């Protein structure tokens, strides 16, 4: 239900919006271009999704890796520093990360990608540390008693037990990513935010509504899909 409904809306919008020029003309008769046609909505959606998917995979790899290192006995002393970075990072808004990335990488998709990765690492890292910390000592002792090595204990016991919280972090990271990628169109990335920003700048409310509807449906679809995955993982325990 949580995936099907938004996905259906998204598909309907993708199929219907290109033929809805008449409606938007009726709503805003003064506009000479009532429909965003610079890039097709499908291409925008795929570009948006691609950006978020690429950034989230990198963020998950980095966040998971750092989280695992910081919870090993040898890396424990890093934990306070890692936490401090996460807390400071949380107060830095996505717009700021985006703005910081522009002078480094110029305009386009690159600064957006960097901002998405930097910002996406935090939720995954935080949830990985929290998830690995809450694995019961009894489970760890049992694994040790069965003669599991460090790696096998991590892969077969700790990570599966922490999968639920980690997945919650991945979900949060992806959702924030969808939102930040939208703002990324303000620095020249081609995403579903492009019609919104172009409409705001060019005083074209039809473009704004088209982009906003699509990106809203996309965000809810992504969130729904990852929520189902998270529930499955938690139930599998």
């Amino acid at each position, binding site marked *: 239900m949580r995936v099907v409904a938004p996905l259906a809306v998204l598909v309907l919008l993708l199929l219907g919006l290109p033929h809805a020029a008449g409606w938007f003309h009726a709503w805003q008769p003064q506009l000479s271009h009532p429909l965003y046609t610079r890039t097709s909505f499908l291409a925008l959606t795929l570009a948006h999704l691609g950006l978020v998917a690429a950034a989230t995979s990198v963020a998950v790899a980095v966040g998971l890796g750092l989280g695992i290192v910081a919870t090993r*006995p040898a890396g424990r*002393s890093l934990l306070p520093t890692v936490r401090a970075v996460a807390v400071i990072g949380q107060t830095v808004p996505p*717009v700021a990360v985006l*703005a910081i990335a522009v002078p480094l990488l110029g305009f386009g998709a690159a600064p957006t990608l960097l901002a998405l990765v930097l910002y996406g690492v935090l939720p995954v890292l935080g949830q990985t540390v929290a998830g690995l910390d809450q694995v019961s000592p009894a489970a760890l002792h049992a694994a040790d008693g069965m003669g599991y090595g460090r790696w096998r204990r991590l892969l077969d016991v700790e990570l599966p037990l922490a999968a639920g919280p980690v997945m919650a972090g991945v979900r949060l990271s992806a959702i924030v990513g969808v*939102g930040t990628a*939208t*703002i990324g169109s303000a*620095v020249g990335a081609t995403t579903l935010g492009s019609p919104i920003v172009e409409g705001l700048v060019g005083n074209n*409310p039809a473009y704004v509504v088209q982009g906003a509807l699509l990106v809203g449906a996309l965000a809810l679809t992504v*969130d729904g899909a990852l929520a189902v995955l998270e529930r499955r993982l938690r139930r599998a325990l």
Partner: protein
Amino acid sequence: MKAAALPVFVLAFVGMVAASLPAFLHVAPNRLLSGDALSPHVGSMAGAWLFAAACMLLAFPGRRVLVAALAWAGLVGLPLLAGTDARLILAHASPFARVQLGAGFWVQWLAAALLLLDRLRGMHRAVQAGAWLAAFAAVVLAFATGAFDSLALVREWQAQRAPFAAAAVAHLRLAAITLALALAIGAPLGWWAWRRRRGDGVLVGVLAFLQTVPSLALFALLIAPFAWLARAWPALGALGFGGTGAAPAVFALLLYALLPVVRYTVAGLDAVPGDAREAARGLGMSRSQLLLRVQLPLGWPVLLAGLRIVAVQTIGLAAVAALIGAGGLGRFVFLGIGQGAMDMVTLGTLAIIVMALAVDLLFQGLLALTERRA
């Protein structure tokens, strides 16, 4: 002992890499062009980081204080170094030239701050607070004496002092109004949701649904309804209810703020032990007395923790609201991006981050105060 040294090694490594980056400073011919990278002190900066790491390898008494002092010196010294360099460079340059802080500076500065944080951990509270306050005071003092006046960031601020102050005030006002409204609406909603356990599913569901919608899309979708409202009731239009502007921005920020406020209100009410409620009932307190005298004082710290999250989140989101004409510091960021004036972008961004950190600290202080009293 080895393990405790790990953060120093990691941060020293990060600092050393940042010190060797080509861009400690950027020298640009004017405000809009991007400049050439410049790194005048690679050797000495990398050497200092190496020294900090080496201190941890040799066991001698007081090395922890030494490394902490080194980190403190980096925190205060790096901006001074950059400021001095900028003055020397500008002495032989055209009047339009700008000296911007580069990635090498920012990463080293962050590493120094994190190193100080790590080395101070476990020391007495007064020592920790004293070290940070002294660093803060030293940087402010240097700023007041004009040590940073040659840096592009400070020049940009001096050129735009009035609009910058106005934007900062507008930003704070947006956040404060949102926070007040969120508390006024969210707390009763949370209380209602807590009273009827079964009824809250829909409310929280709707609020969580809204939380998922990207901020730019929500801001954008509100333009049309607010424009319609202003046309239908001109009195509202006079209050600022245009399609763009502060009213739709506050409304959208409020929608994002409600979920945490409702959730933390419920958690705060849950935190009040059942015994305390029973006892109050037994004393013959009415429901409103119970709420004001028992539940509010006992649940307040939890609600305050929620407000801290809301405040920081709202300051960040309010930056996006600049795109629909709500003003605030986000205007500096997006205007700067539009003009290609990176100093303006940095100025706005830095101000937003500082504001969020300051509000976060303020709420931490309030929390510490209420907890001590409780």
